[in-house]
């Protein structure tokens, strides 16, 4: 059985290995260059006194590598889907389509064993491929990730560390299952892609933020907190809400912004802050610029007596690994359920 699995899967394995090797070479070369530039920039940073120069240097480095980063993240995100489409979907559907299951399932090996060997071998190959590419990606991007401090971004989270392994296992099992159900390779491939993308969306948007109860902190609005503010929005009408974006703790995952609330916990109206707003506007753009990196600090000072606050909802930085493992486990469980279904189903297949 192992011989047959290898013989049938040989071409795909070699193609995948060649692609992985090409990607690895390119990632290793550019990754080394990136590290060189990064440490050189850091040395320049430390030797020069101007903080502004340092930020500029690092920003430049980030934008130099942004295109490559996006490209590789796309590759890591696509890899599990490709595994599901090209390795999963044809595994059973291809046999059914050509009728070769009549030959193979009538040798002295039960279908259960046939499926067990094929599933195990190719699932391991899928997980290994995803693991290698994710490892390379994580290593390659680590200087950029350190600079951005945003490990929870959708692309950054989905294309790093262990989650791609779970995705690959799931996509492969999904492809096999759909091939078994639809009995045609092409429709199975299309359905695999569609369902895989749908599941990824649902998990990323709905499951990941809620799988561990988020932390909600109440931040009062005053000069100190407003000096950190990222955004201040008033409604066009005087009756609309006021939104204030305050940063979550460094490295954490900021989930939501709520409108500014009064001491009773009710959203305030734009009319209530108009005085302060007009004060800020009247000082003009020069004044705002002159206040350095904290353009909203004077506004905060003006708003402080109103006793306002906002609720900041976030997942703290130390939940990164728990969330990675939970999501990997979730996908692994889904993959196992699909595999179990395949074993049940293949016994009753004619």
């Amino acid at each position: 059985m192992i011989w047959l699995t290898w013989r049938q899967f040989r071409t795909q394995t070699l193609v995948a290995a060649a692609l992985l090797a090409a990607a690895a070479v390119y990632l290793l070369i550019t990754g080394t260059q990136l590290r060189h530039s990064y440490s050189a920039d850091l040395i320049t940073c430390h030797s020069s006194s101007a903080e502004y120069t340092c930020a500029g240097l690092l920003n430049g480095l980030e934008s130099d590598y942004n295109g490559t980063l996006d490209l590789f993240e796309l590759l890591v995100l696509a890899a599990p889907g490709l595994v599901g489409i090209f390795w999963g979907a044809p595994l059973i559907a291809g046999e059914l389509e050509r009728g070769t299951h009549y030959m193979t399932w009538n040798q002295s090996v039960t279908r259960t064993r046939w499926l067990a060997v094929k599933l195990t071998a190719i699932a391991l190959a899928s997980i290994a491929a995803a693991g290698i590419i994710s490892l390379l990606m994580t290593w390659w991007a680590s200087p950029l990730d350190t600079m951005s401090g945003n490990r929870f971004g959708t692309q950054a989270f989905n294309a790093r560390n262990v989650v791609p392994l779970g995705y690959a296992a799931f996509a492969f099992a999904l492809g096999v299952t759909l091939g078994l159900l639809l009995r045609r390779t092409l429709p199975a491939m299309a359905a695999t892609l569609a369902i895989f993308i749908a599941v990824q969306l649902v998990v990323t948007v709905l499951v990941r933020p809620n799988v561990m109860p988020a932390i909600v902190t109440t931040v009062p609005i005053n000069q100190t907190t407003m000096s950190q503010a990222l955004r201040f929005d008033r409604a066009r009408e005087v009756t609309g809400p006021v939104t204030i974006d305050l940063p979550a703790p460094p490295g954490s995952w900021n989930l939501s912004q709520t409108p500014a609330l009064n001491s009773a916990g009710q959203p305030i109206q734009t009319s209530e802050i108009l005085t302060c707003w007009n004060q800020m506007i009247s000082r003009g753009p020069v004044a705002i610029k002159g206040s350095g990196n904290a353009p909203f600090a004077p506004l905060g000072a003006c708003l402080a007596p109103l006793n306002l606050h906002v609720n900041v909802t976030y997942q703290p930085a130390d939940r990164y690994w728990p969330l990675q493992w939970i999501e990997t486990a979730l996908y692994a469980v889904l993959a196992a359920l699909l595999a179990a279904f395949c074993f049940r189903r293949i016994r009753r297949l004619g």
Partner: protein
Amino acid sequence: MTAILEAHALGMRYGRRQALTDCTLNIPPGHVVGLVGPNGAGKSTLLKLACGLLSPSSGSIRVLGNAPGSRPEQLARVGFLAQDAPVYPQLSVADHLRLGAHLNPRWDQDFAERRVAQLDLDPAQKAGKLSGGQRAQLALTVAAGKRPELLLLDEPVASLDPLARREFLKHLMESVADNDTSVVLSSHLISDLERVCDYLIVLVSSRVRLAGEVDQITAAHHRIVCTRRDPDTLPAGLEVVSAEHTDRQSTFVVRTDAPLPVGDWAAESLSMEDLVLTYMETAATVRPARQDSEVTR
């Protein structure tokens, strides 16, 4: 010795379509069995039930004394060659033999290599590039190379030209001769099977119409031509299979296990082909509605 195939009230249903109805059979060992019937009669279904690819909807089936198919020991004892002889197009002839060797404990590599040489197949040739006849021969080699006690072949010659048919059947007989392998092969044409079969099953519209050893079947059937009369007036013990009447004359095909009694008729024996066609025709006239529901599988 245990029967090749023992079926009791066996039935198979695909959704709303009844593919096999109330099939009761007991085929003794050591036969080359021809399974004949029009397309869609249930031949493939019966063979797939026998090798365990399908599980019956009703009734029971035992092959070589065991439930078909689910255990490796039983799989090793029964070989199956599916319709159109599927092979892996990307795998070479030699790869197919290797497949057989890796997946079967009793694989006979000498036999398989000898046959490939006899057939003039290039071991390095990709199976996808073989002709239909060569593909069927390769699939037969894989099925026979595992040295089964029973070989099931589903329409093995349907897609072959007459020369390739003859070649295939010749090789089939050679392959099974030295091992006392029992064979069941299906066809919608009796002429394909006449030369090789010594046991016959006629399957029409999902039902078994006739089953038995060829010699006994031919001995038991007669065509009698007489002056026009009602079938009921024929002597007891004659089972009327078909009746045709002209203005003055009646022609009956009758079956009797005793010698045909002497009467005021002219009697003749029937060829296998005539006999099978008679059974197919009567089934068609009895249940004409079945015709349109027949699907080739």
